[in-house]
């Protein structure tokens, strides 16, 4: 019997990027395999839920969970993993704050399903089939019926810590291999930070590790907000000082300012610094501070703010589901999900 720590990795509503970041550890991956036993990892290995159920409670050392909680199945699985694990880590922005899929919390699930299954131009669905709880498929050739139970969606997407107790968070969309590696080292060395901590990243803002910080003026004041798809940023000059809405000042560091190196403003995937309770609220506070108009110039202020396209996606790109309001008011439970459909 090996005495290696057991690690489980589960994905919820995920794009696959977080799993990719694991693979991006490259040769360091071999060291991970040497150091731990992977006991559950549906993306890469054929373990089943029963295998996890059979493990004694608390026998998994670390469970890494990425993606947001969107299905009943996710909810059940993470509760099971919580029971079986000593440490649970929310891995990546989706798990920590809802991430990009959390932006769907602006819509009723019915609206989202209709958009996805009926309206999107690339969809062909003449029978208007939508997800159901159970599907019975008739197979005339075999003179039989097959039954499929589908996992039921939740009315809104939830970050992991709204469903189970979370010990640590690894930020990023996805976390960079270095951030993941740092976090793994910290965890496997038993050198554990206080519960609830963000591991692998910094608690200083991204600007602190950005090479353009030296060119950022003491006081930034802008007349308009520019978009990188409409105007080209000058290289080697703080993007914010040029009018591009860089989220660096309100975002946690740790990624080494990757996007800025690619001449793109930060969109905030490393999330909130300690002490910030609502990323979008803080972002609004910051935009208001740098806009160079007085209240009498009401029209100019409106115009400047109208220059921010998809502005909820700007202030809450990764954190709407974890915001103080968490979803659009008046969201109702879905009506269009049928119990059984026979085809």
């Amino acid at each position, binding site marked *: 019997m090996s005495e290696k720590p057991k690690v489980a990795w589960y994905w919820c509503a995920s794009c696959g990027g977080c799993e990719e970041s694991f693979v991006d550890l490259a040769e360091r991956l071999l060291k991970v395999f040497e150091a731990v036993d992977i006991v559950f990892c549906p993306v890469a290995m054929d373990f089943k839920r029963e295998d996890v159920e059979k493990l004694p409670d608390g026998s998994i050392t670390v469970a890494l969970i990425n993606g947001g909680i969107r299905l009943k199945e996710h909810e059940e699985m993470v509760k099971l993993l919580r029971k079986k694990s000593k440490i649970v880590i929310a891995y990546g922005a989706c798990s920590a704050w809802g991430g990009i899929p959390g932006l769907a919390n*602006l819509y009723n699930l019915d609206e989202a399903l209709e958009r996805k299954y009926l309206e999107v131009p690339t969809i062909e669905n003449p029978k208007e089939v939508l997800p159901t709880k159970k599907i019975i498929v008739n197979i005339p050739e075999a003179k039989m019926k097959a039954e499929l139970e589908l996992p039921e969606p939740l*009315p*809104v997407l939830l970050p992991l810590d709204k469903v189970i107790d979370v010990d640590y968070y690894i930020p990023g969309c996805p976390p960079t291999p270095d951030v993941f590696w740092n976090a793994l080292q910290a965890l496997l060395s038993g050198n554990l930070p206080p519960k609830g901590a963000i591991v692998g990243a910094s608690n200083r803002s991204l600007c602190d590790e950005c090479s353009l910080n030296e060119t950022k003026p003491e006081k930034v004041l802008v007349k308009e907000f520019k978009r990188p798809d409409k105007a080209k940023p000058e290289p080697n000059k703080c993007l914010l000082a040029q009018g591009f809405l860089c989220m660096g000042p309100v975002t946690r560091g740790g990624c080494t300012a990757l996007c800025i190196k690619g001449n793109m403003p930060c969109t905030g995937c490393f999330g909130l610094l300690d002490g*910030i*309770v*609502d990323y*979008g*609220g*803080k972002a*609004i*506070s910051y*935009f*208001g*501070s740098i*806009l160079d*108009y*007085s*209240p*009498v110039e*009401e029209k100019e*202020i*409106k115009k400047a*703010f109208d220059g921010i396209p998809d*502005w*909820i996606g700007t*202030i809450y790109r990764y954190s709407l589901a974890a*915001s*103080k*309001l*968490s*979803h*659009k*008011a*008046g*969201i*109702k*439970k879905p009506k269009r999900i049928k119990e059984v459909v026979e085809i």
Partner: protein
Amino acid sequence: MSDSKGEFEPKIVVYACNWCTYAATDLAGTSRMSYPPNVRIIRVMCSGRVDPQFVLQAFADGADGVIVAGCHPPADCHYIEGNYKAYRRFELFRKLLETMGIEQERFRLEWISAAEASRWVQVVNEMVAQLKKLGPLKPNLEVRE
């Protein structure tokens, strides 16, 4: 919250600037003006100190409405342009409320000088009446059948 007759009594959190609005609420008191008891006043040094996060926190903690109040622009602000900052922030904040499906009447940014006790009383009266019409915020933020 409801009164003895079971009527809905809105809870309103007020962030009042020390130099103008807070002084106006004081003046209303010493002048023995009366206004509905639905407000909970939090004194801040400047309307420019009010972070939209504070307002979101108040809503999340059960406020049905929030007022941020400070000194008249352009020149009354004790810190020269804190009220400008508040104005720009809350202009954008209103857009957030709209997108999140929260009625605009639940939030007010007001300029009330130290002498305008009657304006203070009027704002509270108006807001209480509006919120009574709208009802509590909480049920809207719960996912319902």
